[in-house]
């Protein structure tokens, strides 16, 4: 085939090909050590103060899905990206690209839920922007949010800090958001009770850091690309080998059912209110207690550990006693044909 000369949808899927785009085109051009770390946000230091700075753009179809909408997602997403850097989120910006003809009532609903989400998360939206483009130049509504947060002294969370012996924690059930969005999508009108898990995680993180301090090595919220991609990213950044256990991963029966029906692998579906943490064993119990005390973390579980082995490798012990390799998402998943 001819070489790729245009951006494809897969470049945005959050998996391997998105990574390559970043590595080959973006990083060399902007060349900065904070960027090259590939954390969920940049971790910066100025005049003795450490802070995190993060940005994310939100496009989701449908805009309203069971359990939330794009507005809540945009606030919680950036709050969570900051939290994954160990930061206490403080201020957010919000920018909107609106398509001509977008219903004002829907816009209002989205704004209201953003305000509510910001209030619930204890962050302030302090600057923003609105652009309107002609019909067809954008799909209804895109949102960008950026945020800054302070990193308390003594906190050193980074995706390259996972180490042999660490235990791997998942804060709740897998793939709820991915499935809720799929179920709401046109043409796939499934009856399902699954709700998106969108939730701010910074309080949970603060409690974890309070309980575990430096023993909390790495944090990530497995959004696009799912748990599989997040684990693989940390394993590669930290050059460690990770083993997870299928039977320990919390998965709702409805989610499992829909995934099976469509041939989707829940390891690669998005989560919007879950985190995965790499924790030194000595603080494990205290950290787990801290996570479980948060409403979004009551189903938290240890799902694996870092073991000696080839750097960058993630293996899953399957429930039936087999083994399989876990790689990054290799391109958006499609329902099976057969």
């Amino acid at each position, binding site marked *: 085939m*001819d070489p790729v000369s245009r951006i*494809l*949808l897969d470049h945005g899927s959050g998996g391997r090909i998105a990574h390559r785009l970043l590595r080959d085109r973006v990083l060399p051009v902007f060349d900065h050590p904070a960027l090259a770390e590939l954390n969920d946000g940049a971790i910066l230091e100025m005049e003795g103060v450490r802070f995190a700075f993060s940005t994310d753009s939100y496009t989701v179809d449908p805009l309203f899905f069971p359990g939330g909408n794009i507005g809540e997602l945009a606030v919680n997403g950036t709050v969570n990206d900051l939290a994954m850097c160990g930061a206490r989120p403080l201020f957010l910006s919000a920018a909107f690209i609106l398509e001509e003809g977008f219903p004002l009532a829907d816009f209002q609903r989205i704004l209201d839920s953003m305000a509510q989400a910001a209030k619930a998360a204890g962050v302030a939206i302090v600057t923003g922007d609105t652009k309107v483009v002609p019909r067809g130049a954008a799909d209804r509504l895109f949102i960008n949010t950026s945020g800054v947060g302070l990193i308390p002294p003594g906190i050193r969370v980074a995706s390259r800090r996972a180490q042999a012996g660490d235990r791997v924690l998942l804060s709740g059930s897998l793939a709820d958001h991915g499935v809720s969005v799929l179920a709401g999508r046109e*043409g796939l009108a499934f009856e399902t009770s699954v709700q998106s898990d969108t939730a701010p995680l910074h309080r949970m993180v603060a409690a974890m850091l309070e309980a575990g301090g430096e023993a909390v090595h790495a944090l990530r919220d497995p959004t696009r690309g799912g748990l599989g991609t997040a684990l693989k990213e940390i394993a590669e950044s930290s050059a460690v080998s990770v083993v997870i256990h299928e*039977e320990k991963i919390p998965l709702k029966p409805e989610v499992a059912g829909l995934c099976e029906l469509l*041939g989707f692998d829940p390891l690669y579906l998005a989560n919007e209110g879950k985190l995965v943490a790499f924790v030194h064993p000595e603080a494990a119990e205290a950290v787990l207690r801290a996570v479980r005390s948060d409403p979004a973390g009551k189903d938290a579980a240890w799902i694996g550990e870092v073991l000696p082995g080839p750097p960058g490798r993630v293996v899953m012990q399957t429930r039936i006693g087999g083994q*399989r390799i876990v790689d990054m998402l*290799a391109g958006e*998943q499609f329902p099976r044909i057969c």
Partner: protein
Amino acid sequence: MVTRRNDEYRDATLVGELAARIRRLSRRPLRIMEVCGTHTVSIFRHGIRSLLPETITLLSGPGCPVCVTDTAEIDACIALARRPEILVATFGDLLRVPGSRSSLERERASGADVRVVYSALDAVELARRHPGREVVFLGIGFETTAPTVAAAVLAAHRSGIENFSVLCLHKTVPPALEALTALGDLRIDAFLLPGHVSVVIGRRAYLPFFERTRLPCAIAGFEPVDILQAVAAIVGQAENGKPALENAYRRAVAEEGNPAAQRVLAQVFAPADARWRGLGVIPASGLAVRAAWAAFDAARRFSLTATPVPEPRGCSCGEILTARKTPPECPLYGSRCTPGDPVGPCMVSSEGTCAAYFRYHDASAGG
């Protein structure tokens, strides 16, 4: 994962017992082809290979509908997508499959109207909503999908929808099995027969094939216990020298299959010669729209002719689909060819052998 669904078919104890039985029974090397792509994925996802003794080799066959679609057929899909009056509706899996120069995904990035749908009926709905456009559904898949596409044609006819047609690329499984075993150096000792396809066509449909080849066969479901039961059955047959056509998926597969689905399929489609990637043209192994439904046949409607084109240089898909090579034996595997940047279709489809190897290759097998 923590789920109660299908527990009995994923029970670790039961799986352990079956695996132990297979290890006890199996003495001589046995190469078993799983014909169906859904089996391939299930085998990888559950790490089933890591449970089997070294004597047993599981090979993936031509049962991924996307993988056996010929390059010329993909080119035809692309040619349709390039016509401004046409809206192409397709299963997502076909988007990334490389044609000789481009793919549907790239055509879409260049402005072609290509939409992903989840069923042929969704494409009929698109046609209803866009009366000014020609909606062409890419009909791909085996006996499982073909009846649903036939039903969509009937539905479009009933609702008087005239801007809907199907590019029929459907293929059927039994003739492909015949063709596989007719190849010169057969390197397959037994067949794990597909589950969903068998639900439609029934055990009976494989009888002529079995009578001719007398190779051990078992129809299998998709859960680990289903697959291991079928493997155990095959090993038993092979070790006792008593090949059989066993139905190890009785809870879903009837002797006669599903007559209603067979009727709908036969009403709209008739058997036709088809070109399979890796296997060439196999007589009566595909489906074509019957003349009575010519108005819904995109090939007739847009006067398409498929000119055979060579397969991508260096791609071993053909040998992989016929069990002459495993993906790591392809020189392009993992280097030039990855799921993000595939050379052949086996690396694209979620059920493709190369893609499954790439994603899930058993750690125990040496990664």
